[in-house]
């Protein structure tokens, strides 16, 4: 399990940041790209129109396995409790949506959904975090 950096206590976050600074240039550029994408997705989660569209897609494609926003149960499939099994940063959630975990029955939605739909689904999920 990877803990979402934005939920890390300040001291741990500082350590993580220091570790990140020690990485190579390509790591750094990946890191920047992810941070940029995180910010875009967090902004999308504040846009009611995007969230509404994401909810519609979520209801159509995701609800059957992941349950409603009121979902209970400690499981990777619960997207509305604070625990993330495959990365809880917005860009990590998006990556999971795009590439899936077929061995766990999670489809790679990126192969069939347009990017605006996957963005909207992630925005909806982020908007419902308690």
């Amino acid at each position, binding site marked *: 399990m990877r803990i979402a950096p934005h939920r890390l206590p300040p001291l741990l976050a500082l350590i993580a940041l220091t570790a990140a600074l020690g990485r190579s240039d390509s790591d750094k550029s990946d890191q920047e790209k992810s941070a940029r994408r995180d910010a875009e997705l967090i902004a999308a989660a504040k846009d009611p129109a995007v969230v509404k569209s994401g909810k519609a897609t979520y209801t159509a*494609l995701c609800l059957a396995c992941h349950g409603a926003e009121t979902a209970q149960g400690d499981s990777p*499939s619960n997207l509305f409790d604070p625990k993330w099994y495959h990365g809880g940063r917005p860009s990590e959630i998006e990556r999971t949506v795009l590439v899936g975990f077929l061995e766990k029955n999670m*489809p790679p939605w990126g192969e069939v959904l347009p990017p605006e739909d996957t963005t909207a689904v992630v925005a909806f999920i982020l908007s419902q975090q308690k």
Partner: protein
Amino acid sequence: MTRRDFLEKAGRYGGASFTAMTALGLLSRATGRGAELGGLPSIAAGKPGTKVVILGAGIAGLTAAYELGKLGFACTVLEASTRSGGRSLTIRKGDTLTDTLGHAQTCAFDEGHYFNAGPARFPQWQVTMDYCRELGVAVEPFINVNENAFYYNEGVSGPLAGKRLRQREAKADARGHVAELLAKAVNTDKLDQKFTAEDKERVLEFLRREGDLNADTLAYQGSTRRGFKTWPAVDTKGVMDPAHELLALLQANFSVHFHRNNEFEYQSALFQPVGGMDMIAKALFAKVKTVVRFGCAAKEIRKTPAGARVVYTEGNETKEFLADHCICTLPPPILRTTAHDFGAMVKNTLNIIPFQNSARIGLQFKRRFWEDDDRIFGGISWTNQTINEIYYPSHGFFQPKGLLIGYYMFGPPSDEVTQLAPAARIEYALKQGEKIHPQYRAEFENAFSVNWSTVPHIKGCLSHFPEKLTKTLYPFLIKPDGNLHLAGDWASHLGGWQAGAFESARHVVKNIHAKVAAS
């Protein structure tokens, strides 16, 4: 000359073959709502030995073999496990299951008791009913709705939070209050629609009946429909409790349960096979058992210039099967990890089928307390706890012991119990169930639980194909890809129902027959 041959030859001259064969039970009487197979001529005479290899001996695979056999095809069914039926699984004493996480169980139910871990019921309109008739499987009513069963919601607001109610109380009161509101709105012309005096009276008359309202005041003041605290007899006309307030019912959120019986598939009447759901699979298997091979797991599904080639393992050996057509009924999670020549769009479609998990537990009790103490004979109690529902048996009334389905879950809660050891799953069911039936702990004997995402060779429970993709991707599932075909409930609009497997198999049988007949 066999009876079939005779009738076929006679039919070519007289045209009476189909009627005669149907009457003699030689052709399918199961009509279904999709592919009509009755009346298709056998291809045996013209094209002997057309070979079809069928992967999977669940309902879809067995049905395909059965129907193709009637039409003169030479079928072979390769089944990876050691039993037929697939998800149509009934658990009885001595049955064993080791899931993919290594949790092992052996069923300790008493003789005569059973637990349907997969499908447990079917509505009267589904083709499953026709197959029961055709195969001679006895059916009995499945009591899906019992007004005497309970609703129990907790963590909600209002005076009904954490209280169990008989279903009829909540339903009659909600219906009465809503009818009253509407009647008053109509009576004071507060609706947008303008009624004539005559129409207004018609609407009011409807609402009086609908809500059991006071004829003069149009008020809902309770109704015998909500039941009694003391039941009517000779010395009492019955004692009623006061009606629950509308606000209290809404706060308790019971309406989430109301719709479950209104859905088309769950409307009365529903049925079950006598003795367990697998009676259907067993009857089908009996028809085709000479062509079913167990312990044969498909590893590759290939197109060839002339047909299909399947590579499979049997024991330690890797073998190959050549056929004219291949029908693949492997569930999506298995098929996704099997090498195959289905086209890119079929592959995409297979990848996005949400083959979801579900979890069920069968709990055996020393005493049928739900009948003895609570007077619930069949039906389902509903709750907003994660166990969702408790099924009471629709059979075996008055027996000393009985078996309940203690949870039926989907989504994250089902994934959570899937990780638990069997003993912890029992505790999960008892802890929530005892809030509805305090007798649970004292009467509990043993249990058997099935989590479909960890059942070997299946790895999932059901799929409702996303409505959003029915026009774009669904067509790829139901169209032949060369001589490769997909069948299963998940390749139909009846996902999760055995009827979907029957219908899908019939659809494929019709496609193969048409292709062979035209060649």
